[in-house]
């Protein structure tokens, strides 16, 4: 594995404006009438360019959305869940789990418990019904691990770009 692939790739493909938008506005997004205008003023560009660029970043998959990250369980009910699935059944079980629109993350991980997913529903009753349903349909037990306490202060994630302090675009 090439150690530098990730960032080199990004830095070759991304403009300074894109890098600033990706890195500098992960929290503290302006709560003003025209937030993209405010960002544009800070970066020395136009509102239209900021909106267009964010649109492109979203289309290319670098940005999932511009918006809020909600604290788990502050609305609705959610849980992390894990299953130990025999290797030959894994794809099939993963696809079945993916069918539920309440499942928003689903990963294979290196462990006896090899399938890990996050379920989010309007309330606990719905959540439990889905867990039961998955157990019944797959014939495998689901270990569910709801959050009890959150210790993380979320300020986003420093992408480690080599950014010039500012410039015109």
């Amino acid at each position, binding site marked *: 594995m090439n150690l530098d692939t990730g960032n080199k790739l990004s830095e070759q493909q991304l403009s300074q404006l894109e890098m600033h938008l*990706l890195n500098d506005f992960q929290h503290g997004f302006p709560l003003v009438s025209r937030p993209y205008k405010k960002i544009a003023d800070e970066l020395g560009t136009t*509102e239209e360019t900021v909106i267009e660029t964010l649109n492109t970043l979203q289309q290319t998959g670098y940005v*999932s959305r511009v918006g809020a990250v*909600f604290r788990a369980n502050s609305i609705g009910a959610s849980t992390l869940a894990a299953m130990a699935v025999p290797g030959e059944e894994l794809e099939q079980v993963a696809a079945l789990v993916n069918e539920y629109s*309440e499942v928003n*993350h689903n990963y294979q991980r*290196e462990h006896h418990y090899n399938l890990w997913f996050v379920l989010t529903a309007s309330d606990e009753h719905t959540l439990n019904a889905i867990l039961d349903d998955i157990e019944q349909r797959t014939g495998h037990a689901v270990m569910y691990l709801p959050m009890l306490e959150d210790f993380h202060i979320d300020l986003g994630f420093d992408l480690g770009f080599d950014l010039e302090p500012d410039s015109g675009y």
Partner: protein
Amino acid sequence: MDMKVKYRLPSLPPQAELDDIDQALITLMQRGLPLSPTPYADLGKKLQLDEDEVIQRIQKLDNDNVIKRLGVVVRHHELGYKANAMTVWNIPDELVSELGTCMGQFDFVTLCYRRPRRLPEWPYNLFTMIHGKDREDVLANIALLAKRCNLDEVERKVLFSTRRFKQRGAIYR
């Protein structure tokens, strides 16, 4: 265990009271803010609220920590942070708050939750998500975390992800 690190206290107020309008606003915000010149006014139109009220309500949700952050939500994997490991720790109950708080302040830790143990098969009660460009990067971050938070004696397990079957924002309904 000797705890020498200065901790920031987690801000976890009791569950905020959310009225129907808040719920509707949150539902509408799940797919993100509109990429239009006046995103808050545009959200407001759908809820028959004026722009100021939308902004005030989002501000309150943010103050109450219902919103953890407001901004650009990036996809780590697409941006070159291709490895992530759910790293789980078996921490004595009386130390979990202290150690969790220590771990939660590192920026490569994107999630730090206490969850229940499921004995006998699952003894781990603290879950951290650690990102990095590759495995070595992730493992280096875990080693740093263990050192800085005095976790070298704590039983841990590193679960790298090998395949992503699904990833998107939560949809509450």
